């Protein structure tokens, strides 16, 4: 399922919203989540999961192609943990 298929699916389920309205809400939703994470905040969607940012220290690495030593700068990486409801739902016998 792609973003546009998601928009279609939601549009077919809710009344009094145009496809365009749904598109705006979907875009705004993921943009808000991105913004919040960029600020270092955690995003928690009950039943779905939570997104967190973890800091990674810089480290000495190596270019696997050339074997050259390089320094990998410290960075922040996103983490996702699935919520209880979805964990259970994907394990129901289908």
């Amino acid at each position: 399922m792609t973003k546009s298929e998601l928009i279609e699916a939601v549009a077919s389920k809710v009344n009094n919203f145009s496809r365009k309205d749904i598109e705006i809400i979907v875009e705004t939703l993921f943009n808000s989540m991105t913004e919040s994470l960029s600020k270092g905040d955690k995003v928690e969607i009950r039943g779905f999961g939570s997104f967190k940012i973890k800091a990674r220290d810089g480290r000495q690495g190596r270019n696997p192609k050339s074997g050259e030593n390089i320094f990998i700068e410290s960075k922040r990486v996103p983490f996702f943990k699935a919520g209880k409801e979805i964990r259970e739902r994907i394990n129901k016998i289908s």
Partner: protein
Amino acid sequence: MTKADIVELVFEKVGFSKKDVAAVIEEIFESIKTTLEKGEKVKISGFGNFNIRQKRARRGRNPQTGTEITIDERRVMTFKASQLLKKSINSQPSA
């Protein structure tokens, strides 16, 4: 940030009623969950991909008691952040 905060933010930006926005957001996550349940992945361009992975059964140990247990085969949900999201997360100095 919780779902309620997201509803608030989206509501401020789009101007539909808060109740309607909440219902649409609920439906967005519900659609994603239903799709994943079917074993299909969900790709949100600019944000990331949600995937289902099949894990085999394996022997494990209760870390508290040390007892050997069998961990059943199961499906897990994974998230892979898009390049855009990773970039955005690193574009601001840490709080």
